[in-house]
């Protein structure tokens, strides 16, 4: 990246100290994986939201989150050269750009026998194994590492199949849950066997139990901490949450992650006591209702702030739900507990959705947050290259508008009389990508944001009841 541009781009302002501490933390973690490699520790490429974080920690395997490294390249506006490299290798530009970035990087590192020049934050360590966790819809989770194996034929791949039942309003998930749980448990046991073979070590199940305890405690703490953002003014927005997701997604099952949220919890409570919000004059409370962010354009959150808008909540990267609200049968087997936690997370909104005709778990999630966080409008981001998280976003907005109209208004009827009515929340869909900067136009994006703010303003004025 041109030196001038590097200098020009100021550090993004965050509302919390906790969020500001994340950059150095990620940098240290990435540096840590390179050091671990030098020390001969086992390194595994893997994907976030994979369920087996604690298993890796219990086996002393160092995870390299390949999506994270691609995101770092994007945030540093230095992904283009890796994307181009992958494209020149014959991969289509319309594939997941995280995968493209990772493939471009890996091929380059393997060709050189060392990190590519000026690799962001020292580069991505060469793995000893690659764990692809096949999740519904995300094709890179199956295909990315298979493609990477072309450049690293000596690195084994182990695939962990982690399904969850898709929502059907006429089938209750309890009818099929035993089947799913059994399958997931088998998959996790298979993973343990694979890891034991790779490391030559046996799994210490007591240690794993302790880590699962810690993981569950962390889930509950994250939930409680994020719920503090319901306060008016909100002490933390989505811009910060795109940082504070790091310990949740990349460090689960570590004391460091738990301690981070203890600190964040304390900081938010102090800010609330001082009535200190993200911005001084909070006018509009928005919900980031879906879509991964453009990592290179996180400053857009500050732009929203400059217009009086804050994001007290987001569904993206809220990868936990309170364990105490889930069905968790009594068991001492940590593997079984992991399977139930996984299942409980995915079916969390299913019961609620069944109670509202035309609803869907994802829509129910939006409705809950709209109410809990006193939301005035919804913003989503359609990142063209990730189908997994972006498929159905527009459908969710359509459905929401059909079944849920939270804004009370007076409308002039044909008879000239004013009638009480209600209407849906305004929404904004941004279009770009997670790391492909060529898909982004700052002028167009900010023009849309300006128009959205004016719309919110006019809706507020028109809220006559």
């Amino acid at each position, binding site marked *: 990246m041109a030196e001038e541009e590097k200098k020009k781009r100021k550090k993004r302002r965050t509302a919390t100290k906790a969020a500001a501490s994340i950059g150095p933390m990620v940098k240290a973690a990435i540096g840590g994986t390179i050091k671990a490699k030098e020390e001969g520790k086992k390194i595994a490429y893997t994907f976030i939201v994979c369920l087996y974080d604690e298993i890796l920690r219990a086996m002393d395997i160092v995870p390299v989150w390949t999506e994270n490294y691609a995101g770092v390249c994007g945030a540093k506006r230095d992904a283009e050269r890796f994307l181009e490299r992958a494209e020149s290798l014959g991969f289509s530009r319309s594939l997941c750009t995280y995968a493209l970035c990772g493939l471009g990087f890996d091929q380059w590192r393997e060709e050189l026998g060392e990190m590519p020049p000026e690799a962001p934050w020292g580069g991505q360590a060469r793995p000893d194994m690659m764990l692809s966790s096949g999740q519904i819809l995300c094709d890179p989770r199956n295909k990315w590492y298979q493609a990477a194996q072309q450049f690293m034929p000596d690195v084994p791949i182990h695939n962990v199949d982690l399904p969850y039942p898709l929502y059907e309003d006429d089938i209750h998930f309890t009818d099929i849950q035993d089947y799913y749980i059994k399958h997931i448990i088998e998959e996790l046991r298979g993973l343990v066997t694979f890891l034991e073979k790779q490391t030559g070590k046996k799994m210490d199940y007591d240690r794993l139990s302790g880590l699962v305890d810690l993981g569950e405690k962390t889930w509950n703490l994250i939930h409680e901490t994020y719920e503090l953002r319901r306060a008016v003014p909100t002490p933390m927005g989505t811009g910060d949450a795109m940082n504070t997701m790091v310990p949740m997604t990349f460090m689960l099952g570590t004391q460091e992650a738990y301690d981070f949220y203890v600190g964040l919890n304390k900081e938010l409570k102090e800010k609330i006591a001082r009535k200190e919000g993200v911005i001084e004059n909070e006018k509009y409370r928005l919900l980031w209702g879906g879509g991964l962010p453009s990592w290179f354009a996180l400053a857009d959150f500050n732009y929203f702030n400059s217009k009086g808008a804050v994001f007290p909540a987001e569904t993206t990267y809220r990868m936990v739900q309170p364990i105490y609200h889930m069905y968790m049968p009594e068991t001492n087997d940590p593997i079984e507990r992991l399977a139930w936690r996984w299942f409980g997370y995915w079916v969390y909104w299913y019961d609620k959705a069944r109670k509202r005709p035309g609803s869907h778990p994802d829509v129910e999630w939006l409705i809950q947050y709209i109410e809990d966080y006193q939301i005035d409008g919804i913003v989503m981001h359609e990142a063209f290259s990730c189908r997994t998280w972006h498929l159905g976003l527009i459908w969710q907005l359509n459905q929401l508008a059909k079944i849920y109209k939270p804004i009370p208004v007076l409308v002039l009827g044909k008879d000239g009389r004013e009638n009480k009515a209600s*209407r849906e929340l*305004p929404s904004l869909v941004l279009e770009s990508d997670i790391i492909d900067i060529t898909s982004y136009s700052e002028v*167009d994006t900010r*023009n849309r944001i*300006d*128009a*959205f703010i*004016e719309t919110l303003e006019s809706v507020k004025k*028109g809220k006559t009841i």
Partner: protein
Amino acid sequence: MEYYAGVDIGSTMTKVVIMNKGIISSIIGPTGPEQRRLANKVMEKALNKADLAFESINYIVATGYGRINVPFADKQVTEITCHAKGVADFFPEAKTVIDIGGQDSKGIKIDNGRPIDFVMNDKCAAGSGRYLEITADALGIKIEDMGELALQSTNPALISNICTIFAEQEVVSKLAEGVPLRDLVAGVLESLANRVSRMVKRLNVEEAVVITGGVAKNAGLVKALSDKLGYHVSVPPEPLLTGAVGAALLGKDIVRKAIENGESPERKERSLKEIEIL
């Protein structure tokens, strides 16, 4: 007498209106690189036409893509709000506005002249006026003639390519294959109507539906659009001017409100200078 001006700098056309009770002067011209820099010149033309001095304008609102390049405007407002306001002036009962600009298209849900939701396509030329310009060019006809030609067709051709560039090639090869011109033009308009209506449908379209932007003068497109949406689509008398009219009317509202509150509206310094940067 009070005068209000609206300056709408779109991606392809610049529009200026000066109003008191109604429009007393309006200018429509292309937004060349020059015009974008010289918003002052367009304003001067409008003032000359109305025989007014710059100082006599009570309030100026700039809108459109290039609104930041109007340094003499008292306020900048996005085209979403201005179109909503402008349309409601012609059609107070309007609930849905479709604006097809030179390089983008928008759908706006409105309530008493205020926007309550919107959708925008600024990513792809296929949903904009540019699509018609390019295909008209490829077919060797004038863009103004497209509407009438299309209305004569009973068998619109199917244009399967969504991308403007490929659609251009497709119409040329279809013409060579002997597909009648009127059917090709009707097919082009249908495919534009298709794209726009798909986007607008996200808003839960309600009557009355109004279309603005230069493309609204194309009767063939208006018909195709109303067929796709299943609603009558109304066209204001000067569809290109709605944004500028809305901007001027918003200025009027701002001044009235300030006076009601016993304040004087915040205004910029009145000077028609060139600006250095775009």
